[in-house]
């Protein structure tokens, strides 16, 4: 390849000529590109431009798209994931997220909850022996589904397969369990479940109805294998201090806008069909008498009237009544209520 210059001295032509030629090439191409970028300019979404700027421009194709520009285009217009650029690494992802305005804050993130406690496995009463494609969607279509409860989980794991984050597993009771750490709230499982048993709930709500049966109470008791069906008795609704529970079609449902995590409903449910994640871990309020000014605000917010005291006098919490909902804590102007 190298036809060699036989000169050993640094002559002008040995250096000047190449400088001239390649320099000229550079000038020509620089000009062409500059002019062309003007003449052939095409309108594109400014976000696409911005992302192109951010991307490495290596055009390596690792993202599976047609080069960096193609990927940028796909992010903006095609809903492509933003973490596909290999050379860019994590910095680039963060930058794209910013451009796309996709930063989700973690406090109000939602996670999936399964509203059935049968788990479709050990606990369900079976209508027949199912032999067929092992997916919920297919089974639901064969004689109304293999489990006696036509609302409950069939346990063929469509949800589990749909979850690309491995957030769903089966616990020792054969119930499908959602790992709240891993769940991203993508909702894939919600779409996958043919019985519509899965629902997205804000992560800071910890009380769930574990049943979806709209059958009448007697029937529900008959068909439910887990023995924890919601029979629509309405006791929970009555117990709820904030009226977050309503009964429709023989089924209780919680309004998470209102729910305060107190867990009263769960302890009241005769069939134990309400799951309370905080059970046993709730603390109770205690008012530090030092700081209490007797403003009565806490007594007013307490849903169960566990706080008593006269105006301008030190208030006290009735431990027998306090349910640990923590509503009073942030309301106290003096910040003297503590959970212990």
């Amino acid at each position, binding site marked *: 390849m190298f036809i060699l210059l036989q000169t050993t001295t640094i002559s002008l032509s040995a250096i000047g000529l190449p400088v001239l030629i390649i320099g000229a090439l550079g000038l020509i*191409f620089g000009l062409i590109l500059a002019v062309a*970028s003007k003449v052939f300019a095409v309108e594109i979404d400014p976000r696409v431009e911005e992302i192109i700027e951010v991307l*490495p*421009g*290596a055009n390596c194709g*690792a993202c599976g798209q047609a080069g960096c520009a193609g990927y940028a285009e796909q992010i903006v217009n095609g809903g492509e994931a933003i973490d596909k650029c*290999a*050379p860019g*690494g994590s910095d680039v992802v963060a930058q794209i997220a910013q451009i796309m305005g996709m930063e989700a804050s973690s406090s109000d993130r939602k996670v999936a909850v399964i509203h059935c406690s049968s788990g479709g496995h050990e606990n369900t009463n079976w209508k027949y022996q199912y032999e067929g494609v092992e997916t919920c969607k297919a089974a639901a279509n064969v004689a109304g589904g293999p489990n006696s409860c036509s609302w409950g989980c069939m346990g063929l794991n469509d949800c589990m397969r749909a979850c690309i984050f491995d957030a769903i597993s089966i616990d020792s009771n054969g119930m499908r369990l959602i790992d709240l750490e891993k769940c991203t709230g993508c909702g894939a499982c919600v779409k996958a479940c043919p019985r519509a048993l899965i629902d997205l709930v804000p992560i800071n709500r910890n009380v769930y109805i574990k049943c979806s049966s709209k059958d009448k109470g007697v029937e529900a008791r008959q068909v439910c294998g887990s023995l924890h069906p919601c029979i629509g008795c309405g006791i929970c609704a009555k117990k709820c201090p904030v009226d977050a529970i309503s009964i429709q079609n023989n089924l209780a449902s919680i309004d998470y806008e209102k729910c305060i995590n107190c867990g009263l409903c769960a302890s009241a449910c005769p069939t134990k069909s309400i799951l309370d994640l905080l059970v046993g871990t709730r603390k109770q309020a205690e008012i530090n008498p030092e700081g209490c000014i007797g403003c009565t605000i806490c007594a007013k917010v307490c849903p169960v009237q566990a706080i008593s005291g006269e105006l301008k006098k030190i208030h006290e919490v009735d431990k027998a009544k306090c349910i640990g909902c923590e509503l009073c804590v942030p309301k106290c102007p003096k910040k003297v209520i503590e959970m212990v």
Partner: protein
Amino acid sequence: MKFTKELTKGFVKDNPIFVLVLGLCPTLAVTTSVINGLGMGLAATFVLMCSNTIVSMIKNITPPKIRIPIYIVVIASFVTIVDMVMAAYLPALHKSLGLFIPLIVVNCIILGRAEAFASKNNVLMSIADGIGMGLGFTLSLVVIATVREILGAGTWLGMRVTPLSYDPMLIAILAPGAFITLGFLMALINMIKEKK
């Protein structure tokens, strides 16, 4: 420290071959022997380090419209330097790497790092990044070449490491073996990752 972080990330976390899967052509073409792999790796490291340095130095005077051509010119210059120096002092290696030396120019890692890292960071960090990525690249090449050379020639760095009765499995140093070896190595890495 940030410097060491940038330096070491290419070894495992952002390994250009096993994790980022970039620059496969030289990876597969030259790993028929460890010495070739090492040579290619170091050559690329040199280019990467130098081009990162320059790109990071000139980052403020490059107009965006001709950014890529400029980077390419910078990279191509260093590649040509490597090419010429190698031809002069390491003729045997130069010959066996052949076409793949000029092709370092288009190795996606190099342009990618120039764009993604060097054009946004200071010179020191860019050098760290270049060396780190380059050594990560070299490391991967050596690993692949080790497997291929031992299986396919029964030697490592030219030294016989298998019993004389071993009849080398030629395919390992041929094209199909290159793909398959890399495939299995990557699967192995996936497996280890899964275990964690």
